[in-house]
């Protein structure tokens, strides 16, 4: 792999039909780049959780994928309500998902903990009323 690879995806809030397409594309791209299968799976899980959170809670967002010889990095940015208590949101089982979301299989309160578990580094910044930013880093071997 030569120069760093970068690609940006737009995610629409509340669009459950489109939901998951950015993550599935990212997964396919990483496989094509020849990234280790275990890393690909971890990145895919984290991306999917982050993408679903934009769809469920925010108005709109972007996912920027960056790949260097050392790391895969995701920068996930949304405009939305923000998270007032990040420590609480990070707890397994904490969820404000609506009954409709739960019916679709979401709302276990496992998304953010899953991202943390799969990443080598996770930084969350959020401003209530403005939006949320996740910077997620995965080391390649």
């Amino acid at each position, binding site marked *: 792999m030569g120069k760093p690879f970068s690609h940006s995806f737009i995610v629409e809030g509340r669009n459950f039909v489109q939901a998951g397409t950015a993550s599935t594309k990212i*997964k396919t791209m990483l496989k094509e780049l020849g990234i280790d*299968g275990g890393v690909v799976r971890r990145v895919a899980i984290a991306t*999917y959780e982050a993408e679903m959170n934009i769809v469920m809670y925010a108005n709109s967002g972007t996912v920027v994928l960056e790949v260097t010889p050392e790391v895969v990095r995701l920068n996930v940015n949304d405009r939305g309500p923000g998270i007032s208590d990040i420590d609480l949101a990070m707890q397994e089982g904490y969820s404000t998902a609506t009954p409709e979301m739960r019916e679709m299989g*979401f709302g*276990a309160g496992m998304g953010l903990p899953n991202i943390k578990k799969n990443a080598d580094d996770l930084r969350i910044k959020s401003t209530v009323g403005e939006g949320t930013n996740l910077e997620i880093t995965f080391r390649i071997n």
Partner: protein
Amino acid sequence: MRLSEIRDLLACEVFSAEDQLNREAKHGCASDLMSDVLAFSRAGAVLLTGLVNVHTVQTAYIAEINCIVFVRGKRPDESVIAVAKEKKISLLGSSYSMYEACGILYQHGLTSTMQCALNHTSPKRA
């Protein structure tokens, strides 16, 4: 366990990727919560679920699950089947309940993919 054996044991209808039932399921997982599947499953599992929407198929693709069994006679619609075909995920439908379907596969040697139980000690008897 071969996917074709799962089809036979659970008397399944096959909705997609029928030509790929010679693949192996390494272990099983059952849930209607997609984040639980992503948290606790390992690559190569079969997923048993009562949820027939497209998110189930996407979750399977993300988690490297190549077979989904819909239980209690639930049927996916055409749009869900189309995504599964594209992702080469075998969709099966069984009329067994979740509990029965899991029991049958477990009894035939397909163990659990969920890595959560390993973290707990078994409950002590009084």
